[in-house]
């Protein structure tokens, strides 16, 4: 049994209270909605793409601390990343959240989401924004539009 502070790490609480890149974007290339029907979490992602790179990203939404912090951390992390790179990174995050393997150290601040593993009902909260972004970036017609 882990302690609650493993889930609600300082980083998470901080990003929940002061989410980075929070706000609507007027001229986004992509507007992506993510919805978790089980808890009502709802986020909207705004993304600008330039030369296969996530050149701008922001989000708005309501949700629990985990989903807001995870969205905030994600925008911080993927801003400026190549699309391919961000997809690879999604896979790492996904693995961290859902597998039982020991966790790599190379995820930086995002390691703070690892505590979610112990709370299966919360995994969806942590992965909501990631799934939304990844789905857009990997879906066929989107790949076309970004080439």
């Amino acid at each position: 049994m882990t302690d609650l502070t493993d889930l609600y790490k300082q980083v998470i609480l901080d990003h929940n209270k002061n989410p980075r890149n929070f706000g609507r974007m007027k001229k986004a290339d992509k507007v992506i909605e993510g919805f978790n029907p089980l808890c009502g979490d709802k986020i909207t992602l705004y993304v600008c793409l330039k030369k296969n790179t996530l050149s701008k990203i922001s989000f708005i939404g309501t949700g629990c601390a985990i989903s807001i912090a995870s969205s905030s951390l994600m925008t911080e992390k993927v801003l400026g990343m190549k699309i391919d790179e961000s997809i690879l990174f999604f896979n790492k995050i996904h693995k961290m959240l859902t597998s039982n393997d020991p966790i790599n150290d190379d995820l930086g601040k995002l390691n703070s989401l690892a505590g979610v593993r112990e709370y299966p009902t919360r995994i969806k909260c942590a992965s909501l924004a990631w799934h939304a972004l990844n789905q857009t970036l990997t879906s066929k017609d989107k790949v076309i539009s970004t080439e």
Partner: protein
Amino acid sequence: MNSSSQTRKDFPILERNINNKPLVYLDNAASTQRPLSVINAVSNYEMNYHSNVHRGVHKLSELSTNAFESSRNKIKNYINAESEREIIFTRGATESINIVASSFGQSFKSGDEIMVSQMEHHSNIVPWQNICKKNNLKLIMIPISKDGEIILDEFAKLLNSNTKLVAITHVSNALGTINPIKKMIHQAHEKGAVVIIDGAQAMSHMKIDVTELDCDFYAMSGHKMFAPTGIGALYGKEKLLDGMPPYQFGGEMILSVNFKETIYNELPYKFEAGTPNISGVIGLGAAIDYLNNLNFDDIKKYELNLLNYLSEKLLQISGLKIIGKPKNRSGVISFMFDNIHAHDIGTIVDKEGVAIRTGHHCAQPIMDFYEVSATARASIAHYNTKNDIDVLIEALNKVKEIFS
């Protein structure tokens, strides 16, 4: 007042631990727990007399049929219906309402109006939305006040000669409001409308008398009244049920079949196609036996006392806000806590062994009304105690600590 220590012994699950803390189960509106008598009635059936019902001449079939039909009789007596023909076994309140929407709903014509309150559970909205879309009917919303009560004046004004059906919940699962259904039924009847009551949240907290209420349909969920999941019932006035087409088709619900013509069976079997949930029905019968042994006058007082205690303690926590303030409340209190999302509250109190529900409670229109996306909800049964509430309150203080 502490009769409940005996009561709690009837419910084996209440003795378990969660995260090394004793379980504090305050999620009864989602599903109540079962007394041992119900659990045993079901396993006894499985171990000793399981067989398909109605069509067998052998002993096991006789035993299971008798137990099955005696459950129907128990419900009939318990809710004071006129006849067993008025008791249809269903999967739960959702299916009960769907049967009425889909079968009775076929008699509605373009321009007819169906009225649904703003505080309904999705299962008492979406079936009506669907039939309205299909048959070009109007879906009218009965508004509620900020306190979380149906605005009776508005209801009376909205009623008119086009109103064909009124669908209201007896008790709100999101707010705990007990609606003045007897009065509303009377008013609706004066305009010639039929009334269906969603009784899912009422049955474990009060005695129901469908004859006194004079409702046309009453929907029940077994798992919210100490019976197993997968079983519920629909009460309907015989003369209405009689005129309704069947809902599902197959065995049990027919008298004779050939490729040209099929003759349907009489009530209640017309609405019970296929092998029924026999063990569920037997469990429901045992739950009715359990309910029959309760004194609801005492329980009402006991539960009201608990709710008042809960609400008092909640309001002592700064930043905590209770949603709705109905004069008559049963079972449920929903609340918000500063900017802390209900989901986080739920996880943190769970660590302390406390089970509450968080989210929209399948009642999004009411969330929209209060402009919230989710609430935390504590819901009680007669087996809960002041200690349960004290543990919840302490856990909520932990929430505050973490998010401060």
